[in-house]
């Protein structure tokens, strides 16, 4: 379980004046739950994810994952992460890129696990290709496979599909659910796509514009696995419209 308890974060601004990015955000994420953080750009959703990753220490408030702090969890190689940019190593094959977390943990790669992920993300045929030979969607899939390979306690996804075209993005959204269902790891997904947030999540957390506050916490009661067609169904569209409305009201 991940607990975010009264987290406030200020960035140093001009003339020594601080800019508040997050304002007393509290939420808890259950084990095996996929939570989407949704909000306009600049709402601090990425900042919150970086705090969960241990890359930023919040100005005040506390974060704990599985009873420990993110830095400690990192040192034990228990956090998986994927960014908007794939951040694959260009000199390694797809297979070696996915196996990288094993090497960084000082362990021998578990070949069976690496192969399992390669086929789960549909890259078996590209195991020996370099990132430069892959399409944008393939690179993101490899980067998500890398995040999952060690069966982390928590998976953090920072707009992993943000740089893709609309068609690829939609296909990858459906695939990501399939990949996620294989492990059901506790996941925080940052996105600015309402559809994506609703389709993938067990709960959608809506953050307000700067400073980020929790505007709404909506459970998404759609059964899994959700088919691609769900994206067009009234139930999802209704939820999306409701969240869109919240965001629009906040923007005013």
């Amino acid at each position: 379980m991940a607990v975010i308890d009264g987290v406030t974060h200020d960035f140093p601004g001009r003339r020594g004046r601080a800019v508040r990015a997050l304002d007393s955000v509290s939420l808890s994420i259950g084990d095996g739950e996929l939570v989407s953080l949704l909000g306009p750009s600049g709402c601090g959703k990425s900042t919150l994810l970086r705090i969960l990753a241990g890359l930023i220490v919040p100005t005040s408030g506390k974060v704990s994952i599985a009873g420990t702090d993110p830095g400690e969890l990192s040192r034990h190689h228990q956090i998986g992460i994927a960014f908007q940019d794939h951040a694959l190593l260009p000199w390694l094959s797809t297979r070696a890129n996915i196996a990288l977390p094993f090497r960084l943990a000082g362990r021998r790669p578990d070949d069976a696990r690496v192969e399992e992920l390669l086929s789960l993300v549909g890259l078996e045929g590209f195991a020996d290709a370099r990132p430069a030979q892959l399409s944008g969607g393939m690179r993101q899939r490899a980067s998500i496979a890398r995040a999952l390979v060690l069966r982390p306690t928590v998976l953090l996804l920072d707009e992993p599909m943000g740089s893709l075209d609309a068609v690829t993005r939609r296909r990858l959204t459906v695939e990501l659910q399939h990949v996620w269902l294989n492990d059901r790891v506790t996941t925080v997904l940052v996105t600015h796509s309402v559809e994506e947030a609703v389709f993938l999540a067990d709960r959608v957390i809506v953050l307000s514009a700067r400073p980020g506050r929790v505007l709404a916490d909506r459970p998404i009661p759609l059964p899994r696995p959700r088919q691609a067609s769900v994206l067009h169904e009234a139930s999802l569209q209704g939820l999306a419209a409701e969240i869109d409305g919240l965001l629009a009201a906040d923007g005013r």
Partner: protein
Amino acid sequence: MRPVLGSGGRRVAAFAVGAPAPLILWELIGRSHAFGAVWPPLTAVVRTMLEPTGREVLLRAAAATLPQAARGLFAGLVLGSTLALVARIIPALGVGFGQIAVLAQAVPIIAVTPFLLTTMDRAAIPSALAAICVFFASFVSIAAGLSRAPSLYGELFRVLGASRLARLRHLDVPASIPLFLEGLRFAVPGAMVGAIVGEWFQATRGLGVVMLHTMRSGDTQMLLGSALVASLISLAAYGAVATAQRFCRWELT
């Protein structure tokens, strides 16, 4: 409009025009005696180089200079990469090392030599000078290469719990290879220069020795012949590094 030649084709064309031009100029100056009768045409130089005596002398000299340059190159690379790695691990030392490297580059090697002559074995002077010539280029290029990975990669490695050593091994060192090779391309001719200049100080064999003797005796054909051999060795090494570069052309974005 599409170019008639692709960029590869254009490079070959430029080389076909550019490379022979100075050689043809050399030949013309030699034949016309534009710079006096002591300037031999290229063809005369090559003929002397290929004669049994000329060939024997130049091959023996090259066989003496090559290991000196190679040893110096190796020593300079080891020193440069070690200091660059230490500077990466302990950034506070990096500034000092950078100044040492700049100093090694700024002081003319001729000025260092008298000091080396009094402190070390004469036979080691050529490789020592070659090492000094190589050190700067290798340190600067490796140090720059090691700190080149964009911050996103650093963050990834941090979240994945990589130790400093693991980060160095799996991120910084491979990321530095393209720049290292770029530096090596310039370090290799430097090693030849250092070794040859080093041989001017009481060495018994080598291309530098041949140059010195032929200069004194006015044998310009052999003098230019030994310079030509040195250039060919540099060019071959340069080509080898350029080939290696084609296989390591990665860019972290």
